[in-house]
């Protein structure tokens, strides 16, 4: 009971920040308000028992995104503002809202409940059981998720790291500046 009320108030906060971020005409204010959105999302991830995702959201949302966006508006022009909020195109809002409601209406009832007996993950129960039973003997890592990410599919993760590194190098080339010198 208390849990669901906490979730509902948090959802109201997140929706409010997201809509305000989209509607602000002044980009600097939008960046600041986007920081508040990131705060709400971090609390929500924590509430859903995913503190690792919340830590990433804290580092990326509050730290990196703000600085990257500030660098972007430093390189471009900041439009002068005559009014505070963007004009809302209501027919578009209605159309997109109806589309989203139809999507949720069709998709959400098909989703399997958390911990359900007939969840698709149990269709390959042998595979799931293998990782649960043998992870520590195979890799010496206590957390099964970490073991799958860093050991069983280690080359895949390495490839992802290479992609992220290449993207970082590309950003530095575009900025034409030694930011960490």
């Amino acid at each position, binding site marked *: *009971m*208390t*849990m669901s*009320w*906490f979730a509902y*108030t*948090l959802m*109201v*906060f997140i929706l*409010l*920040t997201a809509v*305000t971020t989209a509607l602000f005409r*002044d980009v*600097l*204010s939008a*960046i*600041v*308000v986007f*920081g*508040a959105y990131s*705060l*709400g999302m*971090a*609390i929500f991830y*924590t*509430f859903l*028992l995913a*503190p690792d995702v*919340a*830590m990433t959201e*804290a*580092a990326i949302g*509050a*730290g990196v995104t*703000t*600085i990257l966006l*500030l*660098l972007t508006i*430093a*390189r471009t022009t900041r439009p002068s503002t005559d009014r*505070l909020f963007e004009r809302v195109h209501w027919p578009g809002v209605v159309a997109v809202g109806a589309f989203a409601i139809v999507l949720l209406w069709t998709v959400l009832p098909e989703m399997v409940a958390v911990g359900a007996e007939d969840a698709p993950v149990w269709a390959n129960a042998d595979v799931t059981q293998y990782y649960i039973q043998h992870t520590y003997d195979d890799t010496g890592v206590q957390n099964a998720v970490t073991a799958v990410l860093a050991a069983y599919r280690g080359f895949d993760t390495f490839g992802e790291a290479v992609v992220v590194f290449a993207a970082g190098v590309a950003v530095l080339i575009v900025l034409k500046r030694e*930011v960490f010198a």
Partner: protein
Amino acid sequence: MIDPAVGLDEFFVASAALFVVLAIMMFYRAIAGPTTQDRLLAVNVLGTNTVVILALLAAGLGEPWFLDVALIYALLNFLMAVAISKFTVERGGVL
């Protein structure tokens, strides 16, 4: 007196929900402004609020490692204020 039937965990989560209501009220300042500095200060206060909410959740859900997230937020909340202050003073010198 706290009613033992309600439980201390529920009490902590309910307090966290009240802090979220406070966050929504504080967000009024972030919308109204009038300057970007007002908004920055409002979001900074929201960040401190977030640390409190995360700590209450850690106590209420009985997961002490949530405090790590709260600590990271307490550290990083500062970063955005510094970056935007530097940006407004030096006009583009962010890093």
